[in-house]
């Protein structure tokens, strides 16, 4: 008999004890007699991370082997599930996802040790102490209240399977990416608190922290995009973002991280905005923890939420309040002692970034209020309500529009003191081209109503303004002519990254505006042989088919879609029956017209006259919807480029090398 699962539990316990030891070592080091002992927290952080990784690997093994003596496996797996979803089942539950969260948190702690050889010892060890504290809190929570390897003496005969809607490749990787982002911000938090304890906040600090912020931001961007893409093609409602509180829970840390990303640049380059940057660093991780809490609190109902008893929600809330409270209290205590940094004029890149930060904070505030208002109303006056798209369009939209408007201007400004008139002149052409592009777009996808026309034009203008404005910067730096390529390659990667990310944002805005404005759909009962028309396309229902998948049986329809008599695609949407959970799942079919999607959903067939069943078919024409997912990918790519910028990388590596030579 083997005892793999129990070894996993033991490894989890070891990780907890080691995390506590990590904190204890750092704390002991503050005591004069033991001063210096904190350096052993480095090795302990490595051991803790490895121990937890072992535990997580064993959990995955339990899922792969369908060991139903593990409660978590019994509740979220089934022997018929394909391997990928057996593995992703390991983080498909509250317990498993908490373990994943902890694994990432401790691994990042180990990365501080591994990558931080150039950091000053005292800062590094304090950061390790804080990271250990967070790790101990979350590993302890997982171990004592949500043991992912909890056991059943008598293994049930079969598992209860994973919700079929979650059996999807995009969703298999959505939580790990999101958690890399959420927890990546924990490192930033630890560094912020460590620096506050040290009382030393300078440009070097910003330089150490920036790669972490960037990496976390990239992962969050990809994670959120994967989630949106999943919602788009798996849930079958034709949309991609519903301002669901759980979606907002992941979006708020992203907004905070975006603001932090920009203020950290100012701090690194100009030694200004210190207090604000540290504040954002604490805030960003607070929002991450809030996301983790909201999803598990039982306060929200959503497909993404875990059903969890309130007691565990309260425990998580306690962790949130204690850690965030400590961070903010320390902030309030130490900020007055901070030395003010570099000066800048009212018209300068710093000032424009300050404005950007203010607008992002205002946007964050609006999302925060929209998310919490219904919860508060429910709790205080017992009035049930929901806040949906119209609110966010009315509040979040204009604020982001303003933020977007200043991006191209900000890009062209110089540090310290800039010349607004000159910048505006340089951007004149880009603005003209953007207006022209938006006007052409409006003509193409024009709609009814003056107000709609105006908002549509403004939305398009914002997107094109971002793209052309960013390209204008590239043109200035590179120019045309023979030297262009050489100059292009000589441009720092961070600049490439910035331009790419802003162009990506512009592309996303274009996609969201056009899709939101011009999406059309039709819903119709169809029999084999029927034809419907939508947006110049013609769709004929030519037949049905059956297909037996690994753990489902599908019924599908075959639809031939034509435009101007020429076949553009054959759609084969399905309705899948999963016997294990006894549930139905519609499988959308997407036809890729270059930028647009033809999106076909099949609903349940009904008996009809003449014995031929009538199938309810929903058909969406989603113009430019590809851009919505392409844009964030480019943004993330921009982030990765910046991450590989020599200047950022060398901050760590050369110092270590220099040091070795010195020692």
């Amino acid at each position, binding site marked *: *008999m*083997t*005892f*793999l*699962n*129990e*070894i996993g*539990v*033991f*490894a*989890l*316990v*070891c990780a*907890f*004890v*080691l995390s506590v*030891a990590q904190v204890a070592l750092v704390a002991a*080091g503050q005591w004069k007699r*033991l001063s*210096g*002992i904190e*350096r*052993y927290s*480095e*090795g302990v952080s*490595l*051991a803790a991370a*490895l*121990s937890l990784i072992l535990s997580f690997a064993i959990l995955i093994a339990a899922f792969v*082997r*369908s*060991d*139903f*003596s593990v409660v978590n496996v019994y509740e979220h797996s089934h*022997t018929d599930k394909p391997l990928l979803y057996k593995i992703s089942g390991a983080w498909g539950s509250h317990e498993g996802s908490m373990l994943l969260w902890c694994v990432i948190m401790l691994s990042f702690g180990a990365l501080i040790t591994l990558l931080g*050889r150039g950091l*000053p*010892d005292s800062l590094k060890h304090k950061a390790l102490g804080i990271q250990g504290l967070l790790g101990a809190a979350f590993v302890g929570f997982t*171990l*004592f209240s949500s*043991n992912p390897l909890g*056991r059943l*003496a008598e*293994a049930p*005969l*079969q598992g209860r399977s994973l919700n079929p809607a979650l059996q999807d490749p995009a969703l298999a990787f959505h939580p790990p990416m999101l958690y890399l982002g959420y927890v990546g911000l924990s490192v930033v938090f630890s560094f912020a608190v460590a620096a506050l304890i040290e009382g030393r906040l300078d440009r*070097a600090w910003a330089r150490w922290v920036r790669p972490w912020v960037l990496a976390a931001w990239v992962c969050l961007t990809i994670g959120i995009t994967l989630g949106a893409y999943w919602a788009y093609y798996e849930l079958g409602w034709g949309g991609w973002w519903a301002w669901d509180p759980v979606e907002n829970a992941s979006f708020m840390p992203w907004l905070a991280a975006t603001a932090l990303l920009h203020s950290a640049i100012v701090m690194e*380059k*100009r*030694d200004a905005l210190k207090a604000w940057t540290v504040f954002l660093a604490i805030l960003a991780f607070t929002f991450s923890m809030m996301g983790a809490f909201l999803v598990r609190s039982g306060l929200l109902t959503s497909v993404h939420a875990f059903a969890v008893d309130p007691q565990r929600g309260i425990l998580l809330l306690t962790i949130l309040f204690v850690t965030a409270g400590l961070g903010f209290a320390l902030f309030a205590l130490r900020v007055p002692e901070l030395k003010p940094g*570099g000066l800048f004029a009212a018209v300068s890149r710093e000032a424009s970034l300050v404005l950007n930060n203010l607008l992002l904070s205002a946007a964050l505030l609006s999302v925060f209020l929209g998310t919490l208002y219904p919860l508060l109303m429910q709790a205080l006056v017992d009035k049930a309500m929901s806040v949906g798209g119209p609110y966010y369009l009315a509040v979040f939209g204009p604020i982001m529009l303003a933020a977007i408007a200043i991006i191209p201007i900000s890009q062209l400004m110089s540090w310290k003191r800039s010349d607004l008139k000159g910048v505006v002149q340089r951007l004149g052409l880009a603005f003209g081209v953007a207006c022209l592009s938006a006007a052409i777009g409006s003509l193409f996808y024009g709609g009814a109503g003056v107000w709609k026309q105006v908002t549509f034009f403004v939305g398009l203008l914002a997107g094109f303004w971002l793209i052309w404005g960013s390209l204008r910067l590239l043109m200035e730096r590179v120019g045309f002519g023979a030297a262009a390529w050489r100059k292009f390659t000589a441009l720092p990667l961070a600049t490439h990254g910035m331009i790419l990310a802003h162009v990506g944002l512009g592309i996303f805005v274009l996609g969201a505006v056009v899709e939101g404005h011009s999406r059309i759909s039709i819903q119709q009962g169809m029999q084999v042989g029927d034809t419907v028309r939508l947006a110049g396309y013609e769709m004929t229902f030519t037949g049905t088919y059956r297909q037996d998948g690994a753990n489902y*049986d599908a019924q599908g329809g075959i639809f031939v879609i034509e435009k101007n008599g020429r076949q553009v695609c054959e759609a084969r949407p399905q309705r899948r*029956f999963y*016997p294990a959970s*006894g549930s139905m799942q519609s499988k959308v079919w997407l036809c890729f017209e270059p930028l647009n999607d033809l999106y076909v959903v099949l609903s349940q067939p009904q008996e009809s006259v003449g014995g031929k069943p009538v199938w309810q078919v929903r058909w969406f024409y989603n113009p430019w919807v590809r851009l919505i997912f392409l844009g964030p990918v480019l943004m993330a790519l921009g982030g990765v480029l910046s991450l590989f910028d020599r200047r950022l990388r060398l901050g760590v590596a050369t*110092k270590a090398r*220099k*040091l070795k030579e*010195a*020692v």
Partner: protein
Amino acid sequence: MIGLVLTCVVIAAALIAIVGLWHRRAPAIDALALAKAQYEGFVVDVERREGRGDIDAELANEERVEAARALLKAEAAATPAYSLKPAHAAIGAFAVAGISFALYALYIGHPELGDQPYETRVVQWTDAARRNIDSLPPEALSAVLHRRASEPDNVKNPDFWLFLGKVDMMAGRYYEAAKAFDTSMKLSPKTFTGWSDLGEALYFVAGGSVGPDSQKAFDLALAQDPKDARAHYYLGRRDLDQGRYDSARAHFVTAKAALAVDDIRQNAIAEQLAAVETAQSGEAAARTRIAGMVAALEAQLTEQPDNADGWARLLRSYDVMGDAAGKARVLKEMQAHYRDRPQVAADIVQKSKGAVGAENTGGQ
């Protein structure tokens, strides 16, 4: 158990070894050397930025002074790197391992519970099935049989699939059972004897109702054997649900006669027969009650015909009782009364078509 303890010891030792190795490989960096290197790097950087015009001379000077101060501070505070005594390190290591093991063994863990991977269990079930097939719970037997479904002996054997279907039924896997019966039927349509089994499985797949597919299966079962108890049983239940009590009773009586007296299935049939009686007498009582109410309402309307609500209720009552002639009569009377107010008459007709009891929930 011993194996578990040994593995735990090995893991704890390995984790402690990692800590030790890291600090052996990376001896404490001399804080002073680090501060010096940092100072140099910082000054170079300040000069570069000053040269590029990022900062002015004043700020550059300020930064240089600050850096120098930090260096001085580091020099003052410089102490040799702390090194744990081997004995202390050993105590720490044992403490971590001991606390972990105590927490595990006394509080969290279940050292007595071994792994139970599904593959191993299927092998055990297969062995058990070879020895005594009745000792296995149907779910386990179903798992064993599904494993063996692809074997050449079984894959084209209609009897195997028929048996598998019956096991799946007992295991509560109705959908799989229906599929297995269907496979068996397709393998040998002419000799298939499981029509009523297929019908039963489909009845459960549909959540407890006889749909067109199960109806067809039961019809074929009865064509094969007019006394098929199972088919009669489910057809009887369908009739009972739809209120055709006499037909339901006939089905149950036939099923009862087809089975041996001591068959356990007699209980289920007796239950259903009792249910038919209860439902029928209940309905009869309701009918008399409604008839009484209708008579009273009609009498009331003859006396005070100006009662739109009453007319609507009366019309609907006749609808419910399925008395078309009576309804036509009342309709005529009502229209005669409202001859000069056709709008009111139309409203009454419209209202009488509304959901039954729509006003009951609100009004009474």
